[in-house]
């Protein structure tokens, strides 16, 4: 009696079994990759803003401290977006006629606020507080990246919960001395050793209960 299946069927079946498994793994991997890709996360995707404000210029070239504009970052959940008045503190004197700054001058003239597009936006069910992070030694650059090198503002991190938990589970990997929080260039020589010391010095807790952020 002749074989029902040709010998090549063996190969076919092996390919389809292992290939099928591989396909499932590949699909899952692809889904995970897409999920973390800038297509979905907007990481390093610059947003259009009413004024082409360059953090790079203001921080690197001019050496302005973060807190000059983001005034409430040490005291409140919200870091604060500068009022038009803060812009005009300088720009009534320098680049006072620049056409790029016309929206600022217009706002100041008319009293109508500038509407900035939000770059770091969390879902409505997440409650984040800037002040406690800054006070416990989380640097601006740790989450926001090297803002001093961003001509246009974009997200440096996904702001996914897994990303939050990286630090909430092991803060020693990320914390820095309080006096270096606003320093964009700071790097630890031995982060883990310093981190462990800071975690105990600043009494940093590993808060991972749901209600810490979701309420």
């Amino acid at each position, binding site marked *: 009696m002749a074989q029902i299946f040709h010998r090549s069927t063996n190969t076919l079946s092996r390919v389809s079994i292992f290939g099928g498994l591989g396909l499932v793994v590949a699909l899952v991997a692809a889904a995970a990759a897409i*999920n973390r890709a800038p*297509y*979905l*996360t*907007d990481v390093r995707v610059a*947003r259009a803003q009413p004024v082409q404000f360059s953090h790079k210029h203001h921080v690197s070239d001019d050496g302005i401290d973060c807190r000059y504009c983001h*005034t*409430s970052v040490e*005291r*409140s*959940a*919200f870091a*604060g*977006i*500068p*009022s*038009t*008045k*803060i812009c005009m503190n300088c720009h009534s004197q320098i680049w006072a006629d620049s056409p790029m700054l016309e929206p600022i001058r217009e*706002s*100041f003239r008319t*009293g*109508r*606020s*500038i*509407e*900035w*597009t*939000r770059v770091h*936006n969390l*879902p*409505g*069910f997440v*409650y984040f*507080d800037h*002040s*406690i992070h800054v*006070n*416990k030694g989380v640097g601006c650059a740790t989450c926001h990246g090297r803002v001093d090198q961003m001509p246009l503002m974009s997200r440096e991190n996904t702001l996914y919960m897994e990303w939050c938990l990286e630090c909430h589970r092991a803060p020693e990997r990320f914390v820095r001395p309080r006096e270096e929080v606003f320093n964009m260039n700071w790097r630890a020589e031995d982060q883990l050793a310093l981190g462990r010391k800071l975690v105990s010095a600043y*009494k940093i*807790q590993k*808060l*991972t*209960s*749901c*209600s*810490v952020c*979701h*309420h």
Partner: protein
Amino acid sequence: MSDDPKGEIHSLDLAGLRKRLEGLAGERYWRGLEELAGNDAFEELLRKEFPQQTSAWANGLDRRDFLKLMGASLALAGLGGCGRAAPPDEKIVPYVKQPEGWVPGKPLFYATAFTHNGAATGLLVRSHEGRPVKIEGNPAHPDSLGATDAFAQASILTLYDPDRSQVVSSGGAISTWNAFFTALDGEIEGQRLNGGTGLRILTEHVISPTLADQLRSILARFPRAKWHQYEPAGRDSVRAGARLAFGEYVAPQYRFDAADVIVALDADFLSCGGASLRWAREFAARRRVRGGKGEMSRLYAIESTPTTTGSVADHRLPLRPSEISLFAGALAGRLGPSANEARKSPATGSAQWLEAVARDLQNHRGRSIVIAGDAAPPFVHASAHAINQALGNVGITISYTQPVEAEPVDGIESLRELVKDIEAGQVSVLMIIGGNPVFTAPADIRFDRLLSRVAFSVHLSLYDDETSASCRWHVPEAHYLEAWSDTRASNGTATIVQPLIAPLYGGKSAHELLSAVRGQPGRPGYEIVRDYWQRQSRGDFESFWRKSLHDGVIEGTAFAAKAVKAKPVSSPESQAGNSPATNKNAETRESLEIIFRPDPTIFDGRFANNGWLQELPKPLTKITWDNAVLVSPATAERLGLTPKIGTTGGERGRVFADMVELTYAGRKIRAPAWIAPGHADGAATVYLGYGRARAGRVGTGTGFNMYTLRTADAPWQSAGLVIQKTEAQYAIACTQYHHNMEGRDLVRSAALEEYRKHPDFARDKDHPAETLYPGFQYAGYAWGMAIDTSACIGCNACVIACQAENNIPVVGKTEVTRGREMHWLRIDRYYKGDPNNPETFHQPLPCMHCEQAPCEIVCPVGATTHSDEGLNEMTYNRCVGTRYCSNNCPYKVRRFNFLQYSDFETPSLKLLHNPNVTVRSRGVMEKCTYCVQRINAARIDAEKDDRRVRDGEIRTACQAACPAEAIVFGDINDRSSNVAKLKADSLNYGLLTELNTRPRTTYLATVRNPNPDLKKT
């Protein structure tokens, strides 16, 4: 709206119940008469815990269609997942010039005051980025002391109510403020020529000093004009009583913390009246006993209708209103220098009472209070004043001051005068400032018809209501959180009312309107109020003004005590019109006494469009969205009433009440009847405020309008009511039968004597606490709550405070009948003993935050978990709505969003939401969080200062609102904290601890102080 009772119905057999009870000692706790009757059919009903599953789907979808739809929704849901996950672009809109000292993201608190029922409650209102969001009490204010009542809490919903009047209208057509001011100017000009002969102003009782000043200056300018004041739930009796006793109107000021014996004569002083919050605080301070020691005050409540005050009394005597007058007279005859010693003996059965109360008062001379209620006849007030004076209480527990009303008048008399003038055709310009007299005026004064005789009538009010419809002009009023004003606390302390937000709907305040009458239209309220106080203050005005605004009280404005002497009072019969039982109607054997009271939740009808208050269960009946005629069980039996619990749509939420026809003073109305244990026999209570025709989307058409029975000569009580049962039935949404705990040991109480002998009577019996799993370790904080049931007065302030703080939606009457109300905190009410006069207990029930929570282990998606600090957390974004947790919760504190209850659409209601709490959507479970947003905020503040959270730093919304300080929250790991001390007390016990849930919320058992001489009748 009579529902056709379908499905399973259980009827209550009252005669059978009485027979059964005759054989019982009567010391059981019970929640509903059906439970007490212990009928088999009812037991069966209880066993079917969730009967609504059988009929919730009324549209008859079959299984095949259901599967098709589910398949399609799954596929579509999958498609939806293919889109970009990133949320849509959001804008950040900073200031152009940011105010100095303002920190974005940090709430600000402003001091202001809420005026209600004749006095102000001082408030601190929390504002987020310019939106007032939550109301707290002002600790510096004498009538608040940091607490608030349910009305003050809910008033913020009225501010944002989208149904509030938004336009000026003239004869029903939309108009403008300019057109109105032009028209008004013409009329006023005409009045100037004749000295204001045709000008009348009708206000509610004015206590605002600035408003009174404006009115006086208008009267000076128009000498022939008149100012009338009327309020349906006003304190006319209090005023008349004081006049009767002292010959002038003085306001009594009580100090309940100094009183050992309190006798309340139809007085619900713990929840009605200007200073009720302070009185509740002072009263509760004398009700706490700890460690088997301590003294308590004793409260006797003699009342016709069950009230919260009666529910916490040590002795409660239900008497008809006419009998209360007799009782008061007899008590005065026994204790005071009464003119009429030989008095009719009081109602039978109360002789022993009279004896015991009189003796107790005699034994506590100078340390007692006899207080008469706002609705008690003037004679009862006068008797109380006479007794207090005879007992030497004046100057110790009671003092007298000038009244807070700028011009105290009798409201009904004032309204009658106005009516007479209108009928005589003397009124050409009528300005109605606030109030809703067309709806609230006594039925024998047809105010709406009279209004058509006035050529130029104006109604200033928050809503375009019944009165607005009958007036020539309606102009929208600014809410008190939108306008500058001032007001006074019950002891005279003045507060500047400052606005939190610019008028949302272009309203103007009474000050601004009256300013136009004085020829200054468009003068801002700020200037008017400031100008008045500038004239009052000496020294540096600017610093006085700033300090007054900041503190929320104006220093040195409390009234000084006045020396007055009470005259002996003559008997009620000789006081024409004062006796409750002098209605012209022939009294027949069948007739009952009728008792009118403002509704416990929507008051005189002014809060009818407030969903929070509509859905708030009434403190004792637990009825929502309706009013009913309350009668005692014995009277109900005589009338042949048989309430039925319907199971057609819900978890015991729908009760079918018999419709009855009330005939009184020649008028008839049909309304449902409700059996109220502890009500006086031979009387019926009707609540005013319901049956509004033009309240708004929420309030129109709810309940029955009892103003249609009320007459001017007997505003509060009278004889001559006939009740006739009809065949019709009416579905009432009642939360009484929800969450039935089936006779478990949930409420524990003892008399003071017994407590002294057995301080640990309430201690939990030993239950095996073994577990296979290692327990949680709480290294940092361990949050816990203790609720003192001796202090709780069941006032509902905590329920509304919780609703406001946590963005809890309103579900509506139909959903309540299905047992789907969303309150995270409910107050369970238990009865004990004789249904004709039971002892009553209140038990506020938030989430227990069990250390071994049954809900946590059944959640398949980890949406409810245990935190490091012992909180039982609910994570909305994880919840998929299986409701396993709710099924497994022994305390039934979890609430499920069956439908889209939260309002995400209405722009004004979006402003109301607390930004620190997620607004929940459909299909999500929710429950009490111990106000975790407040815990987190306090923890962050503490961490920034490198310290631990201090005891008392976190106050949950319910705790902050509580006038009796019955709720205490804190860290139980800190042995010195207030809550840890309470939990160590012998009175502390947990609910259902036999399940080994180890609840973090525990209770302090109730201790009451009955008079050993007075055996319970």
